[in-house]
């Protein structure tokens, strides 16, 4: 057991830090320190390309697909240095964290060669088409249909909560490809270009006043026959595999963002005297502890994954961070008092901490609600019986 880094690893750190500092202090100074997922998409696309060009986009991927075969320790170091240098949220995080790993796991060699380098080079941005209105977390209840027509798949239906679809080139879509099939059977996992007449993206306004999520409509949308992951009808298996992918080293970068949020809460508490309130002190300490435990939990899971062990504890990570952040949002408001309930401008758009309070209510919902996460933990990690489906009795 070892938490420190070796001299070689520290040399890698110096190299990464030097490059990041130069770029984010120089040509990309304008995106340094951004925190919003939706700000400056054009420049963040440039930034993805720059990372790709220099081989810093997907450092843990095989070199053959544009990565640099980095060890876990190197990936951890890069994530830390990326955050330390003020790197902005990755515009292509779905491509890097979800689409890429799924293609690596389930794609043919042709598909890997076609899609992975384009992600690693920052040339193609991805989003995901999973949830549907009326289906929510229930992937088996998908109603979007797909069928073969000549050399294409044709897709009809509607997805919802397609984060970042407005900036994306590709969307992966779970669709029902066998007519009359029910539940998890007869689904296919399709890779679909977004920029075509059959695809319409419409923003959803959130309780924060922003519109980060979208509804995406498929009305005779098309994709080439080859753009299917796994066999037709195997979409469930692929999707479940994808749900199993932990977000990997990117969790550490995410945590650096959480660190900034907690620091802002502490600064606010110091500024208005709430830092001396023993009840607030307890909650800030609990947040400090939770943040560290996310970090070391992630390092445990990543170490195990590197050693080829799947640690079921990885299934607990989503609920941990989502709940932690939701609690932090409430803490922030309790620290700020009425001042936190007002915004400086005329628009309904709140500063970071009040926005966190509102936004974090979505954290425990999207990407699998806390309830779905608890089901998954209970069934996959603890081996408890599955919940009976009403329609499959």
């Amino acid at each position, binding site marked *: 057991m070892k938490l420190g880094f070796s001299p070689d690893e520290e040399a890698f750190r110096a190299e990464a830090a030097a490059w990041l500092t130069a770029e984010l202090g120089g040509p990309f100074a304008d995106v340094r320190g951004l925190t919003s997922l939706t700000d400056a998409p054009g420049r963040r696309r440039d930034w993805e390309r720059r990372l790709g060009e220099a081989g810093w986009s997907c450092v843990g991927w095989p070199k053959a697909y544009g990565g640099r075969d980095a060890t876990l320790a190197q990936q951890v170091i890069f994530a830390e240095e990326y955050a330390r240098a003020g790197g902005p949220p990755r515009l292509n995080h779905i491509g890097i964290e979800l689409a890429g790993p799924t293609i690596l796991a389930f794609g043919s060699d042709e598909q890997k060669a076609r899609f992975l380098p384009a992600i690693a080079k920052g040339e193609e941005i991805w989003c995901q088409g999973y949830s549907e209105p009326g289906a929510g977390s229930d992937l088996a209840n998908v109603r979007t249909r797909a069928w073969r027509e000549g050399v294409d798949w044709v897709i009809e239906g509607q997805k919802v909560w397609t984060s970042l679809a407005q900036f994306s080139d590709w969307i992966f879509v779970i669709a029902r490809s066998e007519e009359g099939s029910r539940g998890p059977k007869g689904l296919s996992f399709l890779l679909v270009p977004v920029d075509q007449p059959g695809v319409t993206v419409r923003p959803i306004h959130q309780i924060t006043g922003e519109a980060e999520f979208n509804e995406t409509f498929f009305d005779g949308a098309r994709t080439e026959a080859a753009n299917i992951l796994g066999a037709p009808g195997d979409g469930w298996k692929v999707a479940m595999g994808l749900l199993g992918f932990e977000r990997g080293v990117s969790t550490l970068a995410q945590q650096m963002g959480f660190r900034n949020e907690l620091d802002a809460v502490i600064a606010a508490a110091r500024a208005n005297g709430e830092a001396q309130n023993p009840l607030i002190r307890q909650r800030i300490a609990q947040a400090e502890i939770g943040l560290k435990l996310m970090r070391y939990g992630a390092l445990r899971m990543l170490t195990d994954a590197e050693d080829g062990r799947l640690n079921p504890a990885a299934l607990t990570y989503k609920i941990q961070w989502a709940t932690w952040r939701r609690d932090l949002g409430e803490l922030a408001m309790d620290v700020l008092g009425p001042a936190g309930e007002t915004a*400086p401008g005329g628009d309904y758009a709140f500063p970071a901490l009040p926005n966190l309070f509102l936004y974090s209510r979505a954290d425990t919902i999207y990407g699998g609600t806390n309830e779905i996460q608890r089901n998954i933990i209970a069934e996959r990690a603890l081996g408890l019986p599955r919940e009976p489906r009403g329609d499959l009795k």
Partner: protein
Amino acid sequence: MHFAFTDEQAMIAETAKAFFAGQATSERTRAAMAGTGVDEALWQAFTAELGLAGVAVPESEGGGGLGMVELAILAEEAGRHVAALPLLASVGLAIPAILAGGSAEQKARLLPRLAAGGLVASFAEAAPGTTRSDGALTGAALHVPHGARADLFAVVVGDAMFLVERDAPGLALTPLTSMDQTRPYARLDFGAVAAEPLADPIAALAAAQRTGTLVLAADALGGAQACLDRTVAYAQERVQFGRAIGSFQAVKHRLADMMVGVEQARSAVYWAACAIDEGSDEAAFAVHAAKAFACDTYSHCAGEMIQLHGGIGFTWEHDAHLYFKRARSDRTLLGTPDWHRERIARMAGLDEAA
């Protein structure tokens, strides 16, 4: 001892229920949210037509001559529909202040117009450093509920309380973009503004705090009940995994826990209201308890409402966020639950010698 509504109270409750259900619709509330946070037609109907703003004002002062139980009933129903009304500001705070602390002349001049709704007042705690000299206030009040809509302000400065008119020279009023748009804040800046002292500021402040706190607790009760009712309805109709989500035990248990909280909040609010009306020794304790418990319950239920609705609960178009944001506002105003619990800790004798 009979802890249930009288026939007259039950009738008021029925009336209020029907009134808000019929008129305080999501559409109208959202229209009001875009402005000063007041549905003017609703306010007009509530005050001029039904005379409800003066429900707890004695008949001799032009009011309804009823009490805190009746006021709590109205506030609960307003809360149930997140109604966009200056109920806290004008009815919960300003009227009781003037009623308890105004001179006979002030009461005669103001209460009938406040009760009739033609005059809207709010209540402002002056920021530290605010001073009065030569009958004029200089300083500020930072978060005045429904301040942008009020015609008159009862301003607390230390142990004194003053009436300040909206149009008074030297008063700068800044509407603030507020998280809860059904009860938006404004900021007041006083630049040597003429301020008329209330005759008995101590009594005025006590009455405003007590009544305002009760109104917030009742609002929270109604809101929490609505969160429960709407989430139960959704859980009964929403199908996931081939079953109504309300058939999943974890969902059922969480809805049950919401009900456990709401029912305790209900006991708390009407105990507090009745204790004030009866002049009970327990009244102060009960008001603290009602505020702390009902606001915690509302926060919990509004959060659960969003969570159990899933993604749709997080959209602007769904009403869940109106409750969620009002729960936060109810919680913050006039003392947080922690603050009220600390007051109860003192009443429980924790500071007496062992």
